């Protein structure tokens, strides 16, 4: 199961890398970045299961929690930038 999740996360990383490079709009690029984030978090959380003991390792949980909050903050700024850009473009035309 662990390897399945690892493979899944690698595929998700690959997909989002592809779409980040070949995105047709900043919006898509933003989504690709978010999916990349989820893929990395998936990898991280899977490692927390990969221990000999019963309990999963809580450290990756805390790290991913931090990661999600950071990613959401950055996404919010990205969205604000896209909004502001489209407003500037609208003002011009």
């Amino acid at each position: 199961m662990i390897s399945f999740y690892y493979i899944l996360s690698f595929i998700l990383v690959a997909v989002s890398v592809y779409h980040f490079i070949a995105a047709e709009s900043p919006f898509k690029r933003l989504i690709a970045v978010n999916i990349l984030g989820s893929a990395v978090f998936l990898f991280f959380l899977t490692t927390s299961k990969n221990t000999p003991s019963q309990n999963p390792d809580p450290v990756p949980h805390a790290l991913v929690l931090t990661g999600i909050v950071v990613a959401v903050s950055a996404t919010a700024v990205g969205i604000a930038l896209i909004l502001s850009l489209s407003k500037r473009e609208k003002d011009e035309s």
Partner: protein
Amino acid sequence: MLLDLMLGSLLLLSALLSLHSRNSLKSGIFFVVFGLLSGLLWVRLEAPDVAMVEIVLGSAVTSLLIFKLIATARIKAVKVHRIRKFWAGVISLAFLVYMIPYLLTLRKEQRIEVLVFEKLSMSGVESPVTAVLLNFRGYDTLLEVGVITLAVFGIIALNKGDKVYVWRDPLVQSLSRWILPMTVFFSFYVTYLGTFSVGGAFQGGSLLAGGLIFLSLTGQDVHIGESIKKSLLLLSLLVFCGVGLMYAVTGYGFLVYPLPLSTISIILIELSICLSTALLLYTAYRGKV
């Protein structure tokens, strides 16, 4: 195992659909689905705290922001050249090839978890995740709170004088009267829950933010003065830094909570994070103070 497979393939499918669809709205909807599915997946991976954050923050708040974007901005798509697509494909495939041998190296590793459970009693809280988040790696969280504050003030600086989107529906209007008190109560409960079980400040704060955003959709606003709002936005960082510095000045060291005071310090910080996060996310949504 079957469940894992299904969940995994659905996750991948939603990601692909979200990335492939030309329509922004579709793409946004599939992204929300992706967020919810990944939340489920985190539960499956025995990470309920993360799942909670993912659902309330990662999918709920993000999707609100994304839908606001889709509703207000015209997203221009440019044609992507074939060569670019080709190279993108080559790069991502190369990455996959590079990572395949990694799967052969997997072995179960003894890690920090033993240490975490060993020291849990000295952290002042009972939930291991909260212990890591606010005590063992509290410094990370301080910077993380810094990141949210930073992001929100960045948004404010960028969008001076944006219009606020209003949802005028009588049902929504009357619902909002019930929802807000409930979310206030619930969010503080979740925050408190974080000290010994699943829950925490970010989850609580995001919940409260959801309530506030709902309120804002009905055309209302939180009626407190701008300066108070501003100071509430900064509250968590001020409290976090203040507590850290207090112990540094008194000789314990930066963010070193002496044992008898650790619980109260953590709860104080958690409450302030909950309040500020709520207001910060709400402000991020509105785009102004």
